């Protein structure tokens, strides 16, 4: 039995024969039940890849297999397995969220009562109940985004693709959305996430591909990528007001010390020297208000690999 939901081989997409490829010989597998992230700067080709995976865009060459089906030859198959929340908010604008969810559920094979029940559950979970009977065109950007996410979740498709799911959402509802996505993943669904919110995504992703200029720069678990890119650890120290005079003495002899405030210091140490550096600081622990050991996060990896390119928008 195959463990892969998607098998992508040598995928190339050019919009014109003489234009540079937007997808440039991409090869990757996405496992069943995996939460897979696509990260990359503006115009890197993430959304183009997703549209090919969903059967909405014909690749120039290469192959895409979804649970063994050839999506390039039979694009209609994709819609039977995949639910897509596209990047744009182009939903039937004169429908209400309640109508949209019920009807989308029915198109995904739910009976009328089941579609109604599933729609009500999602409206409640995503805080859409109060605006469920208003026209989508009149909802805020955040409410439209939530409606699009709910439309992707209804009908329990085995593969869920979210393209920038938390854009325009406030922090509280963002947390709700991430929790809902994690819950889908725990129930065995394959989840593909295109996002710029690297720090939040890191909590949810099993594996991640960092994409630039249509190519995969790095592919692996967040831990693998972090280890590959950065061999340093950052120690953050915040001295108490009374002990601020003692800081130079405590940090004397340490390499990589950076002061960034009257009483705040960063110490960047190679990973293999972390233990020695912590031992050096521990005797002065009573001088500190705060002491943190920070390993590099996915955003550091992302910025290092993409050269710090802007990561707003998408293509």
């Amino acid at each position: 039995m195959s463990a892969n939901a998607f098998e992508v081989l040598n995928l190339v997409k050019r919009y014109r024969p003489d234009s540079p490829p937007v997808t440039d010989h991409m090869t990757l597998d996405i496992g069943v039940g995996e939460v897979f992230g696509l990260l990359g700067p503006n115009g890197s080709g993430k959304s183009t890849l997703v549209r090919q995976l969903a059967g909405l865009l014909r690749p120039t060459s290469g192959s895409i297999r979804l649970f063994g089906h050839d999506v390039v030859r039979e694009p209609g198959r994709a819609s039977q397995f995949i639910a897509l929340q596209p990047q744009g908010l182009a939903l039937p604008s004169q429908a209400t969220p309640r109508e949209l969810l019920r009807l989308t559920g029915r198109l995904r094979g739910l009976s009328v009562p089941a579609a109604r029940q599933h729609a009500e559950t999602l409206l409640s979970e995503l805080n859409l109940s109060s605006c469920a009977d208003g026209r989508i065109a009149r909802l805020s950007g955040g409410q439209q985004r939530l409606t699009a996410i709910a439309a992707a979740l209804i009908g329990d498709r085995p593969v869920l693709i979210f393209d920038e799911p938390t854009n325009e959402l406030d922090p509280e509802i963002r947390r709700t959305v991430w929790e809902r996505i994690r819950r889908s993943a725990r129930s065995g669904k394959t989840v593909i996430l295109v996002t710029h919110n690297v720090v939040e995504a890191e909590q949810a992703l099993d594996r991640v591909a960092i994409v630039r200029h249509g190519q995969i720069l790095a592919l692996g678990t967040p831990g693998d990528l972090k280890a590959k890119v950065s061999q340093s650890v950052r120690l953050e120290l915040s001295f108490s007001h009374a002990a601020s005079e003692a800081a130079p003495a405590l940090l004397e002899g340490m390499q990589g010390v950076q002061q960034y405030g009257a009483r705040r210091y960063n110490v960047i140490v190679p990973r293999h020297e972390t233990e020695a550096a912590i031992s050096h600081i521990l005797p002065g622990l009573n001088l500190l208000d705060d002491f943190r050991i920070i390993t590099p996060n996915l955003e550091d990896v992302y910025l290092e690999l993409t050269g710090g390119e802007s990561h707003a928008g998408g293509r």
Partner: protein
Amino acid sequence: MQAVVKGDLMPVTVARPSLRDQFSVVLQLLYTDYRAQAPFLIITSLFLPLGIVWIIRQYAGSGPVTTWLLAGNMVLAVSYGSLTFALWRSAALRLTGEINFYGALPISQIVFVVSIFTVSLLSTLPPLLAAGAIGRWMLGIPIGRLFLAIPLALLAAATLSLFGIAIGSLCRTMEQVQTLTQLTTLVVTICSPVVLPLEKLPLPLKVTSFLLPPGQATIALADSLAGNFGLRFWVMTGSLVAWLAVCTYLAAKRLDWRAK
């Protein structure tokens, strides 16, 4: 219907609705657009023909010329209703990206085209019924002839809706949508005998009237309202059917949601 993963792969079964259920649900989704515009469309389509026919009657009485103009009025209603709605809707689907919403759902492409076409026909019904009522009460046209005119008008509406879907899908900007809508109006009102009777048109416009669906529809409708079911009536009706086949093919081909 179930889609089952092939071979020794993970057994995933996914429900897929029948074509009839797909049609019913997509129609409900597309109907929401019509619903938003319906009050305006219905009021306009009911009162405009009434006013036009009343004015014409003051000038021309209730003879064959008025009957001809009533047929033209029906075709105008069909053109402005179904053709422009279909043109605008299919263009908007692409321009806004809404087609991706439908494309990502398990909907048969032909079901989608038929659903847009059906909603377009909805926008045709109020003006057609208004024109029929006017024909009966103001011009004294026998009810039997009016009933015969309705399927003919719907045939014209079907052809023009599908033609609208096909050309709407060619648009890449809203400006193109507006230009094509105005061009359509020009073709309908100038190249077809909907404002002037066929006999009064110059030769080039007589030719376009016989070749293009709005002209064919007006000629067939006028013949039917006047009770003339000769060769011309049947040739025009046959030509409309041929256009319907061509436009169905073009609409299905053009409204492919899989971008190249």
